[in-house]
């Protein structure tokens, strides 16, 4: 009897941990469509996700598409995460990340946006690449211009 109680307890703990509705989840291995533009995600460096209050996760192929969903009622109170461009398995909380806009980035949606962990990281990388004279800027998530 005591054994089964322990198993039950363990079960509840496992379920409880499994349902923890916080933090980003990894990109699924199977084909996943962007919730905004429906493009299949093939370049995870630009990917993003939002986790809603109910724990539902929507994936995006780009920061541009994630930005298009910010403020939509379906994801109200949800948290957005952006893939770290230089360290792709890592997700950055959108509001902590720095978004570089530079055409040389060739992002899936064409505005040239990608997320970095810090402004310094973005600038160092850009310096290393050389901008080729093209304009660039670094923005915070909240200041990203709305979709055109």
């Amino acid at each position, binding site marked *: 009897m005591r054994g089964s109680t322990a198993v039950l307890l363990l079960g509840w703990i496992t379920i409880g941990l499994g349902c923890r509705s916080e933090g980003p989840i990894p990109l699924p291995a199977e*084909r996943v469509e962007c919730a905004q533009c429906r493009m299949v995600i*093939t*370049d*995870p*460096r630009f990917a993003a996700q939002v986790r809603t209050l109910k724990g539902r996760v929507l994936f995006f192929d780009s920061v541009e598409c994630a930005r298009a969903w910010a403020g939509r009622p379906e994801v109200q109170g949800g948290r957005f995460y952006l893939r770290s461009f230089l360290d792709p398995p890592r997700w950055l909380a959108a509001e902590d990340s720095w978004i570089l806009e530079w055409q040389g980035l*060739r992002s899936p949606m*064409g505005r040239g946006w990608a997320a970095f962990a810090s402004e310094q990281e973005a600038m160092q990388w850009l310096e290393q690449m050389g901008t080729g004279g093209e304009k660039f800027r670094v923005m915070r998530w909240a200041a990203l211009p709305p979709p055109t």
Partner: protein
Amino acid sequence: MLWLATLVVCAGCPYATIQQALDAAEPGDTVRVQAGVYRESVRISREVRLVGEGAVIDGEFARDPIVIAADQVSVEGFEIRRSRRDLLRDTAAVRVVRSHGCRIENNRFVDNFFAIYLEEVTGCVVRGNMVEGVPRGEGMSANGIHTWSSSRLRIEGNQVRGHRDGIYLEFTSQSEIIGNEATENIRYGLHFMYSDDNRFLRNRFFSNGAGVAVMYSNRVGIEDNEFSRHQGRASYGLLLKEISRSVLRRNRFFDNSTAVHFDGSQRNQVAHNLFRANGLAVSLWASAEENRFEGNIFEANLFDFHTNSSGPTTNRLQGNYFSGYLGYDLDRDGFGDLPYRPFSYSAVLLARYPLAGLLAKSAFFELLDLSERLLPSLVPAQLVDEHPLMHRPTS
């Protein structure tokens, strides 16, 4: 008087490397490259014709085989393989930058990152190339023929397989994509975004991971193409995302999970297409408005139409042929006297509860469909073909 010279490159020739010959060439000259494997990175900076005669340019995954940065350059008859893979710089086997009038013809591309990459280019012809990618892991494959911020291109008679997207046009306008074949590419056979006023004629797309996707573009002509065998989740024969005032005519759709999916796409004309043996022929999302379907053939699809909206619709059906139509034609005008509602109740159920697919075509579903036909309650009232064709037109 212009003296146009021909410079020959081979192991024992005065020019042993392609670059040496190019550096010596005057504008208008021809450089002929004889058989052999050339391990170099070729930069073309003046108007020349570069002709391969059994020549292979091998990038050995470390170099960019050809970069073109001059007008009126042509590259033909080469095998170009193993270009450098640099995720950050979109490296390619042949990259054409800010120029006019290039011709890339009858080359063979093998195991490159991007194969042909046109960037801010006008009036180029890409014709008769065989482009074979070797599929690699996520993010490690690039597109076969890629154009960016270009116009007035002609992409014709190429075969592309094994790349991420077979052909990808971004910010590319007034171009013609004719008679190409894109198969077994990882993502899309053809993909274009923000590209207005293009025409796609007589291309064949089959067995690409997610089919063909055309997005955010206006006034596109898609005619006489074939879209087949695109199967699985998030896979469409043709995905139309925010496409407006475009024409889909005389295309053939076979064996796709969903043949055409309209999302945010408006005022398109869909006429005389053949939809055969697809899971779902046409999926219309609520944001798809004022699309007209006329003279199309729907035969042997599991479902012909589906929408995620049960409200009023502005999409119109007129004079299409449905193999499932059971009406009659007493006045013998060739059109059925009874309307046809191509939306079945089971398709609506299926869209809401994918697992219900287990019951598709079961007696239970037939009963549901029959009751919906008798007392329509779920399908949008206007999405009815009042007078469907009695006889299948020849396709």
